[in-house]
């Protein structure tokens, strides 16, 4: 096949997979128009589900499967996609990096649109450098950490990173901009602008969904994403060359690859055009060894060689390709780091000793120890949550649980009959559960308590039953006693005072969310009482 064709096939494939990734990301939400035949509605408790396979890229990513297997001893749903990819890598090399990886494609495009370096300087930047060992260091650290009980692979995994960055930072960022624009139009006194505002909202709703999401500390996620995009100006595909642990894993698996770069020394004129276009810094120039484990299979060198001195060919040979250059010190360092990280993560005692009251996990979450062996911190549950209650943690779950999901009840609440987060979690850190189970078992995520100093009836500031009104359990977990309370003006009034029945409370947080006392609501939910933990329960 001609080099030109190969490059075009690569571009088409990259575009296709990037678009597929973005499509599935956008679809990771409750669709707006869900129709149910209501005669069916009468008879059954409905589970609203997402039809699209939104976790597909996580299943395709062998690092997700491997780290879940090593850490949580759990084979994730659809793991055979990742297995298939590893098998393909054995024979074809890092074809995933060049043809499929959406994050790689974004880096590729950013590096290509406006190269920061020209001519000789680009050739120099594309020389293989020892910093490329960092990714092997990271891979070994992450996998060893996973084996010893803390799975933080998702912090660096390209699919998790990209999903988290786009779903929690890029899209909501654009969404806020649009919202401000639409609100400005809606508040205008011109009928035409009002209509345009509504029309605009409807128009963007296929992408931004219904309502606008916001995420605590997402600025940090967005900033990191911008920084790694910027690094492409120092070296093309900096992330892929230096940092990507999935690239490192695939590099190790590409040793037997039959797809090899063959160099013809006779024809080479040392023009170094191949090195100038090389995306992976894999030394394509004849005269030096081709770095098979670094090659992203972009086929640029093949395409750019004016003399036909380079060609990719399928050739079976019992001889292995050149192995990845990991560096002994990097490997030793990674072994030390991999063992230390889970220990560091345990230092705060969150797994064994203390329970952070603010760490309210989504319903269906595994016990904390198991949760940390599986959660990829990808943000899929946060993206899919219809009330926007699930947010990434910063410090609440300690260092070990950085960016794992937690519920912030002043931002949303857990809807009583919603099961979406459990349905989409790619690794089962939040296991799948049904509406029936959620209600009847029930799945408890925390418990509410009344802050009597702030509560309007308790403090004599007026009648209010909003928490009780919204309480979704039947019978309600919030109940009243009629009492006489002295108000601020010394007048006594008969009033209904809210009390909690902890046996019935599931910790959904709608009381906290709807409480009219703003800022710090007068009824609040803490994680105590959650059914996933035996230690953190309250009642006998």
């Amino acid at each position, binding site marked *: 096949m001609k080099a030109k064709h190969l490059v075009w096939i690569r571009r088409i494939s990259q575009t296709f997979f990037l678009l597929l990734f973005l499509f599935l990301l956008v679809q990771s939400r*409750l*669709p*707006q*128009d*869900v*129709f*149910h*035949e*209501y005669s069916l*509605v*009468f008879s*059954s*408790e*409905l589970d*609203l589900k997402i039809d699209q396979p939104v976790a597909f890229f996580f299943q395709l990513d062998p690092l997700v499967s491997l780290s879940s297997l090593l850490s949580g001893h759990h084979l994730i749903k659809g793991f055979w996609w990742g297995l298939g990819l590893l098998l393909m890598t054995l024979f074809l090399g890092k074809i995933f990096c060049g043809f499929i990886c959406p994050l790689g494609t974004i880096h590729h495009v950013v590096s290509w649109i406006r190269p920061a370096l020209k001519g000789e300087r680009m050739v120099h930047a594309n020389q293989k450098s020892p910093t490329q060992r960092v990714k092997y260091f990271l891979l070994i650290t992450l996998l060893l950490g996973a084996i010893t009980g803390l799975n933080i692979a998702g912090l660096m995994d390209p699919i998790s990173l990209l999903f988290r960055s786009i779903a929690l930072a890029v899209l909501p960022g654009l969404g806020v901009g649009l*919202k401000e624009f*639409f*609100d400005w*139009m*809606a*508040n205008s*006194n*011109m*009928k*035409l*602008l*009002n209509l345009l*505002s*509504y029309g605009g*909202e409807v128009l963007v709703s296929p992408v931004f969904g*219904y*309502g606008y999401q916001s995420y605590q500390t997402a600025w940090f996620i967005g900033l990191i994403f911008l920084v790694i995009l910027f690094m492409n100006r120092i070296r093309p595909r900096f992330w892929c060359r230096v940092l990507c642990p999935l690239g490192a894993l695939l590099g190790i698996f590409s040793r037997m690859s039959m797809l090899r770069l063959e160099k013809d020394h006779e024809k080479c004129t040392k023009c170094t055009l191949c090195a100038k276009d090389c995306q992976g810094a894999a030394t394509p120039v004849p005269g030096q060894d081709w770095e098979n484990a670094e090659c992203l299979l972009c086929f640029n060198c093949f395409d750019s060689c004016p003399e036909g001195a380079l060609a990719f060919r399928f050739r079976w040979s019992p001889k292995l390709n050149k192995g990845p250059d990991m560096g002994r010190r990097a490997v030793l360092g990674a072994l030390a780091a991999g063992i230390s990280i889970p220990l560091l993560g345990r230092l705060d005692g969150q797994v064994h000793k203390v329970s952070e009251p603010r760490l309210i996990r989504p319903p269906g979450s595994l016990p904390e120890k198991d949760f940390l062996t599986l959660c990829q911190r990808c943000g899929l549950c946060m993206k899919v949550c*219809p*009330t926007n209650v699930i947010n990434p943690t910063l410090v609440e779950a300690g260092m070990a649980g950085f960016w794992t999901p937690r519920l912030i009840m002043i931002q949303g609440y857990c*809807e*009583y*009959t*919603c099961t979406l987060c459990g349905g989409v979690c790619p690794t089962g850190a939040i296991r799948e559960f049904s509406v029936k189970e959620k209600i009847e078992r029930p799945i408890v995520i925390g418990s509410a308590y009344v802050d009597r100093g702030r509560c*309007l009836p308790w403090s004599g500031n*007026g*009648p*209010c*039953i*909003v928490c*009780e*009104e*919204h*309480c*979704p*359990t*039947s*019978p*309600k977990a919030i109940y*009243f006693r009629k009492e006489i309370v002295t108000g601020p003006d010394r007048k006594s009034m008969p009033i*209904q005072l809210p009390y909690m029945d902890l046996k019935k409370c599931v910790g959904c947080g709608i009381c906290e969310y*709807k*409480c*009219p006392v*703003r800022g710090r609501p007068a009824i609040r939910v803490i994680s105590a009482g959650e059914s996933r933990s035996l230690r953190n329960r309250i009642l006998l």
Partner: protein
Amino acid sequence: MDMNHFITRRTALKRLLKISGSLALYASSAWSFRGPGSAWAKSEKKGLIVEGVGQTEGYSVRELTRKVLEAAGGITRFVSRGDVVVIKPNLSWARRPDLGATTNPEVLEGLIEICYEAGAKKVRIADHTIHDARRCFAITGAATVAKKTNADLIYPRSSLMKNMKLNGHRLDVWPVFVPLVEADKVINLPVAKHHSLSTLTLGIKNWIGAVGGRRHALHQDIHQSTVDLAQFFNPTLILIDATRIMIKNGPSGGSLSDVAAKNTLILSDDQVAADALAAMLFGYRPEEIGSISLAKKWGLGTYDFRQLDQKKVIL
């Protein structure tokens, strides 16, 4: 136009500004604020009230809806050809319809069909739900009804909430769900339920679902707030769904044991009368319900049924 010259960014911007400026001028000249007429003033017209009861086993709720409207003299008395009709059901909770927390979808379907038959240009369903609107519309059956009957389902988006002057005794300016104001005819379609603060939630209280903002603060003076809202929205018709009523654990319920079958629909053009008759289904006297007695006091209507044209339909 001279196509040989490239349009520079500057000229393009200038042109766009000119076009949008003239559009804006045109629009502002066409725009005039039109709120609904205040209902504080007593109307002299004789009101009507119809009670429809389904007594035969397996009666059709849609048929009962139709019969009730026929008894009221036909929908054409209230809806004219070319009208935009906005229906305000109670779809607050993402609950199955049989749990009685939301308006029966069959009543909704029947009503929309009848409005279209009367020649309505467009029928819209608008509610500012408490649970996530997508889930509410899907689970209560309203989305299916909208699709079946070709009615518009209006989602409570932030751009549709607009500050308006309510002229209330308690509420002055409050964000209002705009589609309900911009309708030719508004029909209130509540479900009859128990409520822990206002005792019952019927037609007058259903207007809480038509406003935005800090609406949970309204509970601090629930009766006057809801009466103010009822006065502002002043619907053409009130149809109360009491096919099954929630007798305890309201307003969200969640269990079939909270629900009792009444197989009743109440239709009126008098907000007070409709609520009063519904309250009697629960065994209350109308004056026991704060919002009803207050609404009567302020002249929104009457629960002296002798002053009304009273009818009863049995199916």
